[in-house]
């Protein structure tokens, strides 16, 4: 199995943001062993003004000796400095933290505890919704036909250790597993409903070589330099700071290994007949995502993003999923699920009026019309890019 980044522990302070960060594993025999850390915490907290943050998102373990020491320092600071409030940011991925830090909050109400990865990302509630499952499933069916050939041009081979980050419902990981006979696959996502679905599917298909892991892509607990091939598909577009995810993909990739990303530029979806209405709607999709701080137009920016993240030997290409690839009904189905998600959930959430929503929906209906038209053509363009982590 994937082994976590482990001991020893580290600590550091970001004075600018007043964030004291603890990471690793703290299991001292007695509290004196972590004296330097506790003293530093105390000094920083005493100097803070307003809000002081303790970041334990990567504190994988702490025994009671260490926890008791940390809690004592925080309680003392709260006593000495009534003007300072403490916020502890933890990750729901590190199971032990909510148990203990919530107990601390109950004891000292001036200490606030937040699960950083819960409400942090824009649009998280849309993409973690279980209804999103059907969108993803249909999309992968259509993109796989292209990608199984494309992957070979980006360095995919047999017997690799692969990580699929933001794996959604895990179908891509299963397909990789069947097609490329990897040593193992770790697939990570932050949506529990999707992961449940993924595990059910793996069980149904009797696949045991794929490990589905709950985690936060911006702060993964996977080890450094572990994977030959790291994929992250249609996901950089759901983050407001994709470069943070890329640096994590870079970190877990082996030197010499490759990171493979795929992204869209939704405003380039097209169709004939009724091209204009279709184009109008997809331009609006781009604006809608932007409103929620997400960039569904990232596709062509992939090359720059990979270069800026430190990758070399960038390979990039695009392909178009169309109504002619397979059953046009499949294409129509994907558009139907977009229509539900974009027009019914997201536009309503933004507060758009009925007239707008009607016009917005019309473009999706026209795209479906084009897909199913005997002489029609409907397309959804995708950009894939990969880069090598330097040796």
């Amino acid at each position, binding site marked *: 199995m994937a082994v976590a980044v482990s001991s020893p522990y580290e600590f550091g302070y970001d004075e600018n943001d007043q964030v004291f960060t603890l990471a690793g594993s703290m299991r001292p*025999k007695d509290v004196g062993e972590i004296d330097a850390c506790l003293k530093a915490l105390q000094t920083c907290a005493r100097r803070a003004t307003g809000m002081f943050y303790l970041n334990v998102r990567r504190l994988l373990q702490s025994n*009671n000796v260490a926890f008791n020491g940390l809690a004592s320092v925080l309680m003392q600071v709260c006593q000495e400095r009534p003007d300072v409030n403490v916020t502890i940011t933890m990750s729901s991925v590190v199971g032990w933290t909510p148990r203990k830090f919530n107990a601390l909050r109950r004891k000292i109400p001036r200490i606030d505890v937040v699960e950083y990865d819960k409400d942090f990302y824009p649009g998280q509630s849309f993409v973690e919704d279980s209804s999103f499952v059907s969108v993803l499933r249909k999309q992968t069916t259509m993109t796989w036909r292209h990608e199984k050939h494309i992957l070979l041009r980006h360095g995919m081979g047999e017997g690799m250790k692969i990580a699929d980050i933001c794996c959604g419902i895990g179908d891509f990981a299963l397909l990789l597993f069947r097609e490329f006979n990897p040593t193992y696959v770790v697939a990570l996502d932050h949506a529990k409903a999707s992961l449940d679905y993924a595990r059910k599917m793996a069980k149904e298909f009797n696949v045991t070589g794929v490990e589905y892991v709950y985690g936060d892509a911006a702060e993964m607990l996977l080890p450094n330099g572990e994977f030959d091939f790291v994929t992250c598909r249609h996901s950089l577009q759901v983050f407001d700071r994709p470069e943070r995810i890329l640096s994590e993909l870079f970190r877990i990739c082996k030197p010499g290994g490759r990171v493979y990303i795929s992204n869209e530029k939704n405003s380039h979806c097209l169709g004939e007949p009724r091209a204009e209405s279709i184009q109008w709607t997809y331009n609006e999709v781009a604006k809608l995502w932007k409103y929620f701080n997400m960039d569904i137009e990232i596709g062509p920016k992939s090359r720059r993003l990979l270069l800026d993240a430190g990758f070399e030997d960038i390979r990039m290409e695009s392909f178009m999923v169309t109504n002619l690839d397979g059953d046009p009904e499949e294409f129509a189905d994907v558009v139907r699920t977009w229509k539900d998600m974009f027009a019914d959930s997201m536009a309503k959430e933004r507060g758009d009026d009925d007239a707008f929503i009607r016009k917005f929906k019309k473009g999706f209906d026209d795209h479906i019309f084009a897909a199913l038209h005997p002489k029609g053509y409907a397309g959804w363009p995708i950009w894939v890019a990969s880069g090598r982590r330097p040796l």
Partner: protein
Amino acid sequence: MTDFQTDSLPDDGFKPLIEFDLDTTVLNDQWVYCDFMSSFVANMVSHNRADPFMFSNLLSATLNELFETVYRTRKEAGQFRFRMLRKGSVDRITMVVPCGRDERQFYLKTIEEIRAPGASEKYLELLFSDDELDRRVGLFELAISYKAQMSAVAVEDKAVCLTVDLVIEQGTD
């Protein structure tokens, strides 16, 4: 060297996962073994759980508290025996700790306290205590925070056998 037969305990359909013996002198000297053993066991038995990472993180935290408790027990010469068994979502940990009368009493009495009313408050009191940490805190934590079912029995007059039933992940079979 004494060796205690725990295999005769009824297993109720539990399947053995991992088992080892360790000379108590090693456990007396080597604090880092608590961390080693808990990380190692947690990694070994978590791979087929629904969320292996989360499972192993929580299991390692609980095992470590148990090993640390044993470390802080005055042990007699002999073999410390660790076993882990599984039935569905229940993991059963048994530990046989060679020790004298006072230390046996420590385990038996702590388990009694854990079952008594007010145990939750007592746990928080121990956890946030200003004094040196009380060594009962680990056992309280398992019972209160992890809802473990625990029992302790004296093995003749030579050891104590601690049994902990833990459900870390609901609905795994």
